[in-house]
């Protein structure tokens, strides 16, 4: 283990190298590009013995990962925003084909209009595609989570997106403990036992047309229909609720550091208000908590690491007895509200005396959000709750009247 001062993108590249990926395919897009530039240099120099396919688009980047993974290789790619959107068809394909692909997302705002800065609309918009989605709060988590993602993916045969905020983490240097190759080799053995078999001596037709209902094969054995495959896939995502914390614990034994499993908290135990978010915003929220606590407001942070599968039971348990949860989303389901806020409300529906949930929309297109802004939004939410408000439109943090918005 050595400590290095590196960007989030470097942390992701180092993680891919430590995972001994065999095939990398990627297409440039800001703010992800440095990840694959770094990997490309290592492949060229021979430092990383892998195939690097310089594809002509993101659609092909994920395609190369899909078939390389199908034939049994460990694969890696990374993208952002419109690159992820351009992959969308293959995002679904990778998941439906049950391939253990790991893809880093340097989160960036979706065009139009063009904007290269951070929010989480890109990956949040892919939440239903059947991937595990993990969000990182700092560069250390990017490294640790990317390595862990291979364990999770290969245990469950589902792809994993490791999401981290563009520029805020991707281009910001921080001290990161880099595990040794021996430590990671002990934690992450080479990929074995692929779900699919590509062998001329035992040929298979992989991913053919599959009808809704089960059909019998040539030996008269009933095989799943499309809907059974979907149920199995969903089951794997639900199983990830167990596997993600297990893998985090295994990582802790191998490397001496954990990321918190599905969710983590900061000063939430005695709090009666929980501030909920995913990604680097949670680090900001810990600073907001400091100032609010100084005023005597009992607040804490509830950080979401696993957004899919959604850790509903754990969130219910962590928020049990709280009177208010304030959710900070860097994404929006237009015409409704922030995705985490909506999901949290649904998760708390069955709780006994559930807390009131208020959503906030912040940081879109890289709009700066300071701990002071977050504390201000928390105060407004607390005041609304104190006034007996139970349902409220999202609070758009720092949207300015002079910009034409109300």
């Amino acid at each position, binding site marked *: 283990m050595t400590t290095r001062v590196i960007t989030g993108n470097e942390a992701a590249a180092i993680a891919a190298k430590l995972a001994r990926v065999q095939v990398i395919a990627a297409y440039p897009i800001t703010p992800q590009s440095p990840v694959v530039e770094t990997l490309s240099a290592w492949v060229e120099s021979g430092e990383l013995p892998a195939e690097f396919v310089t594809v002509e688009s993101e*659609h092909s980047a994920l*395609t190369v990962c899909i078939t*390389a993974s*199908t034939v049994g*290789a460990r694969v890696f790619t990374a993208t952002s925003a419109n690159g992820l959107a351009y992959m969308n068809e293959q995002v679904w394909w990778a998941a439906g084909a049950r391939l253990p692909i790991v893809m880093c997302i340097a989160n960036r705002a979706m065009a139009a209009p063009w904007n290269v800065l951070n929010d989480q609309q890109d990956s949040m918009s892919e939440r239903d595609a059947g991937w595990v989605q993990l969000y990182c709060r700092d560069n250390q988590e990017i490294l640790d989570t990317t390595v862990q993602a291979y364990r999770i993916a290969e245990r469950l045969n589902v792809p994993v997106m490791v999401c981290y905020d563009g520029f805020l983490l991707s281009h910001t240097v921080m001290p990161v403990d880099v595990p040794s190759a021996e430590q990671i080799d002990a934690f992450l053995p080479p990929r074995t036992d692929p779900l699919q078999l*590509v062998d*001329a001596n035992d040929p298979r*037709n992989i991913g*053919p047309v599959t009808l809704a209902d089960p059909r019998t094969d040539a030996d008269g054995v009933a095989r799943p229909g499309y809907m059974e495959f979907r149920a199995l896939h969903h089951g794997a995502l639900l199983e990830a609720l167990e596997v993600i914390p297990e893998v985090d614990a295994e990582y802790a034994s191998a490397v001496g550091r954990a990321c918190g499993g599905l969710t983590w908290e900061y000063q939430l135990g005695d709090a009666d208000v929980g501030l909920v978010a995913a990604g680097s915003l949670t680090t900001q929220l810990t600073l907001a908590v400091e100032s609010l606590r100084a005023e005597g407001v009992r607040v804490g942070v509830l950080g979401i690491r696993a957004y899919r599968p959604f850790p509903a039971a754990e969130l219910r348990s962590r928020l049990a007895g709280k009177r208010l949860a304030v959710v900070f989303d860097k994404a929006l389901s237009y015409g409704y509200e922030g995705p985490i806020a909506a999901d949290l409300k649904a998760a708390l529906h069955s709780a006994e005396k559930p807390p009131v949930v208020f959503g906030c929309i912040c940081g879109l297109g890289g709009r700066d959000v300071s701990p002071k802004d977050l504390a201000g939004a928390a105060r407004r939410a607390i005041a609304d709750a104190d006034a007996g408000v139970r349902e409220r439109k999202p609070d758009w943090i720092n949207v300015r009247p002079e910009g034409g918005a109300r």
Partner: protein
Amino acid sequence: MTRITELPTTEYVLPGNRACAGCGIGIALRAITKALDGKMVMTVPASCLTVLGGMYPTSSVNVPWINVAFPSTAAAAAGAAAGLRAMGKADDMTVLAMAGDGGTGDIGIQALSGAAERNDDFIYLCYDNEAYMNTGTQRSGLTPHGARTTTTWAGKRENPKDLPRIMEAHNIPYVASTSAAYPTDVYDKVLKARDIRGLRYIHMNTPCPSGWSFDPKDTVRLGKLAVDCGIVVLYEVEGGVFHLTGRSAALAKAGKPLTPVAEYVATQGRFKSMTAESIAEVQSWVDERWTGYLERERTGK
């Protein structure tokens, strides 16, 4: 040139599949899989070939086959090749991408062009049945002038794009044009391509009874007629050197006029709205191309 009686007897396309009666793909796929002796992995996009391959959990082919998304056939082959290379298995099997004309020349051309520019190591075979046949005969960029499709009811107004020429422009080591009506020509070209490294592109005219409106018994006859008319030209470009092959080479050598396009047009329902004028237009287009091919045959360029 391999004779039909000399083809290997092992069959990799199993008896009984979901392709239409008279489908040219079925004839060719037997020859293709024989040429590779089943030591292959295919990438197949949504297309007639998917239908031929069968529905889960049964399969009509006895070779590894990966179904892939429509635009992704070439990138999928590149990925399979990279994966096999990374795992030290690249020598065990040939990667064969196989897609239709729409999947190759329209939605798939970006990924194919990228793979060709990188000279990725696989064979790409386009079975050109001249429209989106699997989705119900909509026009593609390779549908011929005058053909009625379900999106060109009065007949397509444009000539098809010349995909093998586009592939030649990528300077890949092997480009060939063949026809499903000549399975031994298909066999020989796949066999030759097998032993070349880099991207090898084979364009295969593939008569389609349902989409072209002809009797399924006439698939081979019409495929051969297309060659006799010069609408389809059999050739190879190996290391940049052009030469006609098979029937096209024989026609060039004989030096006699080609069969008139009108004879070919008369055999298919899809051309029934063509006027004498539009047939003449196609004839002059074909003549001009044939002159070009003869010149290429003469110079080798």
